Every structure is written in structure tokens, then in C-alpha cells.
């Protein structure tokens, strides 16, 4: 008995794949492009404020002083209070409360306000496309689920998936080239892309699914569901104002000697039953952290169980690090950059294929040229302006994007507009790196600042050289003819 996908099913799957790809292609392109950059979130935060002192050392007494200072200065606390401890990928301690965050210096005083508008722009664009928070997150997660639909329909549509696994036909026939580029990047990146789609879908769809699970398994009690997955609130003994962070950190060392402290959440800050939640990374797992809970005096209470509990808890709490590649070494980050860029290219090449098959050129081609290269160019223009007026990055981006679309429609020459926007993107990359160097200097800056600026400059130089090479080879070909 032979198993296989019928030609008819394959054809219909391809039709559906094309339809859905066209329907959500632009949105997926935005999410994938911003997601690729968002992989470098921690490095970008350090790049935006490069003069903050960096160290992996910290004293619990100093951290406690910073917490006290924050309580005195802020008065009423309306949010969670979280203290991020220094780690190799973010060697800075900072404290967040009431929607603000401050870096903590060696002496335990709150220093610079943590501010990174460019990174925030990228993160918000990726997570919610600048839509209102809850709706935007759900919307982007639905895009993650639709990416799964595209992946599955793409596999069903591709009858020669193994036979053509290593075929790439370059040369002048750009339809074949686009098709091969689309298929080869998709097929070999499939496990990664599927993981990105499934973990991406979780962020916004987890909520509605939890509501249904609460109905089915917890008699409608969502609190009970969250208690079982994320841990019940512990019974913390009364707190007599003698917080001992040092004792908590020392106890953690005994309870989980291999775990690396990552953050401290002060639950019910200033209340009688205040308790501490110490997030600690287990470097042999994908979970963001295990959460060890202590009373305010630093006595160990319990652990939620992400590391040693049920497999389901581990799976749910592994989503973040898997989605953003924050595990392993810098090589994993670089791999995620390449794989993310491949997914972005897949989105673009899929729509390019549709354009290639059309017999005509119209305004849609103009808009598409503006979307593909207008997006990075608009983002870079907004980021540059953001050095002067950080609060205006979002409107500046959308303003620049509308302008690039209008320009493309006005010029009615998508090929030329695409060329101009590409060169503009490369030049804006150079301008961004140089502006940041002029503003912050080069000496006494964080290694991330040097790495990101070197990366930006190298990328700009590579893009410019590639465009020059392409232009020269095109001219040589036309001279031969």
C-alpha cells in the first residue's frame, strides 16, 4: 500500500497556500522582520544606553538599599516590583516599578532611568504591530497560527519535497529562482519555522484557550488553573520589616546550587505578608527560570515547579527562550538572526512569485516595492529622528512609511523605487551607527555597543557592495547582448 498526497489535494493546498500567503503576507513580513531584530533585544538595550557601568558582581545589601530607596521615592506601588540581576547577556542590575525602571549602581542607589525607545519600538511592533496591547497581541498570535497553516499547506502542496530538496536554479529566470529560494529556505528551515509559529501563537492565544480549559477542567475557575500552572500564592509568614535579601540569595545557593539568579520579584511590596520570588535560570533547560519563593526574611518557602514539575509546565515556560533564541551562546543568537531573516525572505519571495506570474504591472507592484524596502528605510529614519525626539518614533515610522508608499505610486516604476529604497536603507544604516557613535563616543562604552555598531556598519557596507556588484553584472550582461 502506498501513501502519498494526491495531485488534486496538492493543487488545492497550493491554491489555499497562495491565497492565505497573499492575504497575510505583508503583516507576516512585518512580524518576521521585526522579530529578527528583536532577537538582539538585550544587546539593543545596552546599545541605546552604552555608558551604564556593566558588571556581573552585585551585593545583596546594595540591592536591598536600592529597593528601599525606590519604596521611599515612589510611595504607592501599583505594579509588580521586579529587580533584574546582572547576567552575561545583560550585565546590569535594574529595578522596575510603576511603569518605570532604573539602573542600580555599585553603591546600591538608583542611577539612570532605563530608557530604550528604539528597542521598545521593535518589541511593540513585533508583539502587537503597534495596535492596542491586548488586541494587538491576540492579532499577532493569530498570525503565528496562520503561519502554521501556511507551513502545513506548503508541505502538502510540495509534491517533490525530497526530490528537489537540494535544487536551486539561479540565473536569469527569476520566477524559478524565486520559487527555489522560497522552497529551499522553507523546507530546510521547517522545524525552526514551525517552532517559531507555535511559540508565537502561544503568547496571545494562550489566554482564550485557558478560558476554555478552565471551563472543561476547573469548573470555570481560571484562578485554579493559573494556580496549578504558575503556582499557588504561598503562605508567607508575617513580615516584621526585616527584609534579608542576602539570606534569600544564600538559601537559593543551597536549594539550587546550579541555578543562576536572574530576577527578584517583590510580591505585595510594603505589605505585612510581603514575600520574594527569586527567578533562577537552569542553564540545561529552555525554561525562562524556575521561581523559588522566600518570605521577606529570606527563608525558603517553595519552588513553583517549572524545572522539576510536570512536563507541561516546563513546555509552557520554555516558550520565551525558544522563541527568541536566548539560550546557549552568542552562536545561537547569530543562528536565530539568519533563520529569522530566512523566514522574512520566504514571506517576500512568496509574494514575489505571485507578482512574477501576473501578466501585468499595476499599483500593487508599487505598493509591494514600498512595503519591502520602505519598511526598513522608514524604521531607520524614525530611529535616527528618535535620538532627538524619542517619543515620536512610532508616528514618524508610519509617516515615513506612508510617504514611501505614496512615492512608489507616484513614480510608477517599482524596480527603480525598490533600488532607491535599498540604497537609502544602506545609507541610513551607516547614518544610524555613526550618529550613535557621535552621541555616545566609542571609549568606555559597553561591548554590546561596539558589536552592534560594527554589525550595522558591516551590514551597510555588504548591502552597498552587493548592490554595486549586481548593477555592474547587469550592465555587463546588457553590453554582451
Amino acid at each position: 500500500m502506498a501513501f502519498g498526497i494526491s495531485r488534486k489535494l496538492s493543487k488545492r493546498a497550493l491554491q489555499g497556500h497562495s491565497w492565505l500567503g497573499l492575504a497575510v503576507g505583508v503583516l507576516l513580513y512585518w512580524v518576521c522582520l521585526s522579530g529578527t531584530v528583536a532577537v538582539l533585544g538585550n544587546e539593543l538595550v545596552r546599545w541605546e544606553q552604552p555608558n551604564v557601568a556593566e558588571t556581573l558582581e552585585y551585593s545583596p545589601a546594595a540591592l536591598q538599599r536600592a529597593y528601599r530607596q525606590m519604596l521611599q521615592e515612589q510611595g504607592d506601588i501599583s505594579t509588580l516590583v521586579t529587580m533584574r540581576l546582572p547576567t552575561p547577556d545583560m550585565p546590569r542590575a535594574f529595578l522596575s516599578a510603576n511603569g518605570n525602571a532604573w539602573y542600580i549602581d555599585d553603591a546600591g542607589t538608583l542611577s539612570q532611568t532605563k530608557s530604550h525607545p528604539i528597542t521598545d519600538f521593535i518589541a511593540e511592533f513585533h508583539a502587537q504591530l503597534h495596535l492596542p496591547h491586548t488586541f494587538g497581541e491576540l492579532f499577532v498570535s493569530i498570525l503565528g497560527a496562520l503561519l502554521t497553516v501556511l507551513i502545513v499547506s506548503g508541505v502538502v502542496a510540495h509534491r517533490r519535497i525530497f526530490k528537489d530538496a537540494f535544487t536551486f536554479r539561479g540565473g536569469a529566470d527569476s520566477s524559478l529562482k524565486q520559487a527555489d529560494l522560497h522552497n529551499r529556505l522553507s523546507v530546510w528551515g521547517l522545524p525552526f519555522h514551525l517552532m517559531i509559529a507555535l511559540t508565537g501563537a502561544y503568547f496571545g492565544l494562550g489566554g482564550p484557550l485557558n478560558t476554555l480549559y478552565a471551563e472543561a477542567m476547573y469548573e470555570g475557575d481560571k484562578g485554579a488553573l493559573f494556580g496549578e500552572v504558575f503556582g499557588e500564592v504561598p503562605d508567607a509568614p508575617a513580615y516584621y520589616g526585616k527584609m534579608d535579601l542576602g539570606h534569600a540569595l544564600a538559601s537559593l545557593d543551597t536549594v539550587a546550587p546550579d541555578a543562576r539568579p536572574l530576577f527578584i520579584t517583590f510580591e505585595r511590596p510594603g505589605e505585612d505578608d510581603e514575600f520574594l520570588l527569586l527567578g533562577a535560570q537552569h542553564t540545561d533547560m529552555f525554561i525562562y527560570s524556575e521561581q523559588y519563593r522566600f518570605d521577606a526574611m529570606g527563608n525558603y518557602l517553595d519552588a513553583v515547579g517549572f524545572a522539576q514539575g510536570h512536563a507541561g509546565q516546563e513546555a509552557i515556560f520554555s516558550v520565551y527562550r525558544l522563541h527568541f533564541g536566548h539560550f546557549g551562546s552568542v552562536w545561537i543568537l547569530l543562528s536565530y538572526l539568519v533563520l529569522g531573516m530566512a523566514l522574512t525572505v520566504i514571506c517576500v519571495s512568496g509574494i514575489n512569485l505571485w507578482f512574477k506570474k501576473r501578466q501585468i504591472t499595476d499599483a500593487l507592484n508599487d505598493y509591494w516595492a514600498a512595503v519591502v524596502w520602505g519598511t526598513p528605510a522608514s524604521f531607520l529614519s524614525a530611529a535616527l529622528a528618535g535620538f532627538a525626539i524619542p517619543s515620536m518614533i512610532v508616528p514618524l515610522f508610519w509617516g515615513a512609511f506612508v510617504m514611501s508608499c505614496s512615492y512608489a505610486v507616484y513614480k510608477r516604476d517599482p524596480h527603480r523605487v525598490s533600488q532607491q529604497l535599498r540604497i537609502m536603507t544602506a545609507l541610513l544604516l551607516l547614518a544610524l551607527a555613526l550618529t550613535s557613535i557621535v552621541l555616545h563616543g566609542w571609549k568606555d562604552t559597553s561591548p554590546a555597543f561596539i558589536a552592534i555598531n560594527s554589525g550595522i556598519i558591516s551590514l551597510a557596507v555588504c548591502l552597498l557592495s552587493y548592490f554595486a556588484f549586481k548593477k555592474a553584472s547587469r550592465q555587463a550582461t546588457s553590453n554582451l547582448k
Partner: protein
Amino acid sequence: MIFTMAGILLTNIATICLYRGWLAEGANKSKASQGFTFAGWLLIPVSIYVSGLESGIRFAVAFAIITVCFSAWLLIVRARTQRHTGRERAKHRKALNWRAAAQGLIPQLLTAIALIPVCGTLAAFVTVGITHLLPFERVNNLALGIFTMPLIWAGLALWYMAETNRMRLYLCGSLLAACSAFSVYA
């Protein structure tokens, strides 16, 4: 470090074996090429096992996925063919036909509604309706459901796109929705 590197090396060899195996087609597809394909598939789990000795199984799987992907792309770049089939024909420039686009809007909108909110909601109900009955811990059922729901969505969307008998599709879909809702709320 040594086991991780050995694992990555084995993954590279596995990809090269698959390359050798799949490159041959039709009459050229000898026993040797089938052997290469078999060796390629076999070496992938072996490489995961070797990396896993040092890095743990979770990281070993991640390393294998990334390595297979990169080594395959490098092989493709190396083996790419250059065909010069002549210049592309210049296409006619036309004004965007807004009237035709507007006329086609309603069927497109209906497809979008069927594929996105309808298939999505049905997938959520089917997933929860089935997974909460599984004989595992509740947390494990929940996690399994959260990660399989988009795949069930994909299956339903594919069914919607491929089914030629629309009446059967609507009847089966409605029955599925009713059973799942009963399973969730009853």
C-alpha cells in the same frame, strides 16, 4: 564541548549523506544512493544522542535542527545551477482595476472569515474538547493543547480548502463543533 562538536559534525555528515542520496534521480537512483539516504536519516538521531551526552537532549535537538538547516543551505549554494534563459518579458502597465477588486471582495471576505475566525474557533474547541479527556495530568493536557491547537487549525483550514463537497464540509464541521462544545461545557 567535545561531544557537542562531535554531534554537530555528525549532523553535517548526515546532511551530506542526504544530499548524495537525493541528488540521484530516476535511473541513476542506485542502491548506493538509497544507502546514503538511509545513512543520513540514521545519523541524525545518532548525532542528537552524541550532543545530548554533554548538552542535554533538549539542546542537542536544537543544535541538530539548526545545523541541518545551515549545512543544507550551504550545500544548496555550492550545488546551485545557473541557467540563462533569456531576458524576462516586459509586462504591460495597467491601472489598478478597483471595480474588479471590489467585485471579488465578498467571496474573498467569506473565505477569510471561514479560514480565520471560524476554523480558529473550531480548532480551539476541538483541541480543548479532545485534550482535556486525555488520561494525563491536567497541566500536561493543557500544554499539549496549547501547542497542537495551531496544527489542528491548519488541518481544518486545509480541509476547508480541499473539500469539494461543501455540504459534507458544513455538516461535518457543525457536528464537530457541537461535539466539542458538549465535551467542553458538559
